[in-house]
């Protein structure tokens, strides 16, 4: 009998997503009403809950999807089903410990890893178990890996490394030298994101090859070229986050040069637009197909934005503004979440071939999700542009005054944040019910 652990990963991923959005909305309300519950649950307390929950959504759903594809779709005999269960239990217990750590202010960590640093040990252990199971399973079953297996493998390995690197500050060698320490902190954060992108983008290529029923999608030389390009960016492209920090110029030159190679990705997207998307066979997986179409759109928008602010002359004006937030929200919601929802719909179809995914309300939820995200994204871009104008052009008025002048955009951000929550809830309910049915 197949293990149900992948389904548990996916169920808890959905719970983490909605908890994360709830914390995010509550926190963003404090942009509109700064005094709102600030003494009991200030913004600074809510933000770690929000960030950790949404990262958990990405990590748990990617992990659950990969386990599912290996066991249910590829029908590999997993190296150790017991380790899959242990992995799940470790992540669940650590998740609870992190929430407790946040609730009782044991937050000695840093941005994105605010929890008590000791908790990185079980997190790393979970990733190592995942790695052992993954590589042992594939080593036995597959000769000649399609690109998604490479992507998942490197995603797991680099995740382990960058989770450790994000805690190098615990050593005085890094900590006492502020510039080096701060640079390494943002190096690890950038590459941590790159590592989960390896897992998620690998899932998108897997889905494309399965929905199209065309293995060439994942084995041709071009797709491997872009995999290596992505890996190079993961390794060396992080320093565009810290162009304005006085690190050695060569670190920034390397990052600038490497980041510019992503123009090739953009050119490829434009060149292959029709070929890669419109010919996808969609009959059996209509919602998985629609979410992948949305992914293509959001990749296009976000890669243009990322390329522009990887140019130091543009980064100079956009850095430290809400334009950066627009990019991070645009990529985590627009790209990661659409790919992962596509995976969830694909998985439900595998579990229940007769399950009708493109119901009227699900389609409406999908449309309103994308419209809301566009307005949410544009609100942040405008707020960022206004802040940049204040920082570099007008230079007039206090921080408080500029924040007040941005309130209309924060209202729009808040309202359409709620709309994204409601839209995704509509889309997720049938998936959630299907997963519950499976584990009963």
């Amino acid at each position: 009998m197949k293990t149900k652990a992948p389904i548990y990963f996916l169920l808890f991923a959905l719970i983490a997503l909605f908890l994360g959005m709830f914390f995010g909305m509550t926190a963003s309300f404090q942009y509109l009403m700064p005094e709102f519950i600030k003494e009991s649950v200030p913004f600074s307390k809510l933000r770690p809950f929000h960030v950790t929950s949404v990262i958990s959504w990405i990590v748990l759903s990617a992990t659950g999807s990969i386990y599912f594809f290996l066991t249910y779709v590829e029908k590999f005999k997993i190296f150790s089903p017991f380790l899959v269960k242990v992995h799940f239990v470790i992540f669940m217990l650590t998740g609870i410990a992190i929430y407790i750590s946040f609730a009782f202010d044991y937050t000695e960590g840093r941005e994105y890893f605010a929890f008590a640093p000791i908790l990185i040990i079980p997190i790393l252990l979970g990733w190592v178990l995942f790695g052992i199971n993954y590589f042992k399973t594939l080593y036995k079953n597959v000769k000649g890996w399609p690109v998604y297996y490479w992507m998942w493998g490197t995603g797991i390995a680099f995740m382990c490394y960058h989770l450790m690197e994000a805690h190098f500050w615990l050593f005085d060698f890094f900590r006492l030298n502020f510039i080096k320490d701060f640079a390494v902190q943002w190096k690890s954060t950038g590459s941590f994101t790159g590592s989960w992108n390896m897992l998620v983008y690998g899932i998108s290529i897997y889905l494309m090859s399965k929905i199209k029923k065309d293995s060439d999608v994942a084995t041709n030389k071009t797709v491997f070229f872009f995999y290596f390009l992505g890996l190079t960016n993961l390794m060396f492209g992080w320093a565009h986050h810290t162009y304005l920090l006085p690190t050695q110029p060569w670190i920034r030159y390397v990052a600038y040069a490497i980041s510019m190679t992503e123009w090739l990705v953009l050119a490829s997207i434009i060149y292959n637009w029709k070929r890669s998307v419109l010919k996808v066979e969609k009959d059996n997986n209509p919602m998985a197909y629609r979410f992948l179409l949305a992914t293509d759109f959001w990749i296009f928008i976000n890669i243009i934005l990322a390329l522009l602010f990887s140019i130091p002359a543009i980064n100079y004006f956009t850095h430290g503004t809400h334009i950066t937030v627009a990019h991070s929200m645009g990529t985590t919601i627009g790209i990661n979440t659409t790919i992962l929802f596509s995976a969830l719909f694909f998985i439900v179809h595998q579990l229940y071939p007769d399950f009708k995914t493109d119901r009227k309300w699900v389609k409406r939820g999908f449309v309103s999700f994308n419209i809301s995200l566009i307005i949410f994204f544009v609100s942040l871009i405008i707020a960022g542009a206004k802040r940049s104008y204040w920082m570099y052009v007008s230079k007039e008025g206090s921080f408080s005054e500029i924040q007040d002048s941005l309130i209309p955009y924060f209202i729009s951000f808040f309202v359409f944040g709620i709309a994204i929550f409601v839209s995704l809830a509509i889309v997720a309910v049938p998936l959630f019910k299907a997963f519950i049915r499976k584990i009963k």
Partner: protein
Amino acid sequence: MLNNTRPYIFVIAVLITLFGFYNYVVYNTDGYVTVEKLSSTAVKGQQLFQSNRCWSCHQLYGLGGYLGPDLTNVYSSEGKGSNYIKAFLNSGVKSMPQFNFSEDEKNALVQYLKQVDETGIYPNYNAEFEATGWVKIKYRNETSKD
């Protein structure tokens, strides 16, 4: 299905070797400007900055949260400085929670922000834009030419 994966393994091996060398150099390279190591008081201030999640709302070098102002140069900004920072810490103005820092803790946070301030300027208006898209920034305490 692929049969010949050796070239790919070779590329991965080359990239990982370069990555190892690159990391070694990055970890052993100091910043572009000469700065003093954080003092033990500043380290205590940094711990307070982290455990109170100041980064949730505030930025250093434009990195962090967006609800509060950037604090890179709050120590040396005109009309601000040590007393201004201390006054803000326990005031609970607008969305900032009202903290109850002791005098020692306030001194530690000020010392941390003072040492951060000494590392550079943000936003830095002393910038030259080049046709290549590069920006040449004049830092404080520069020891070498860009």
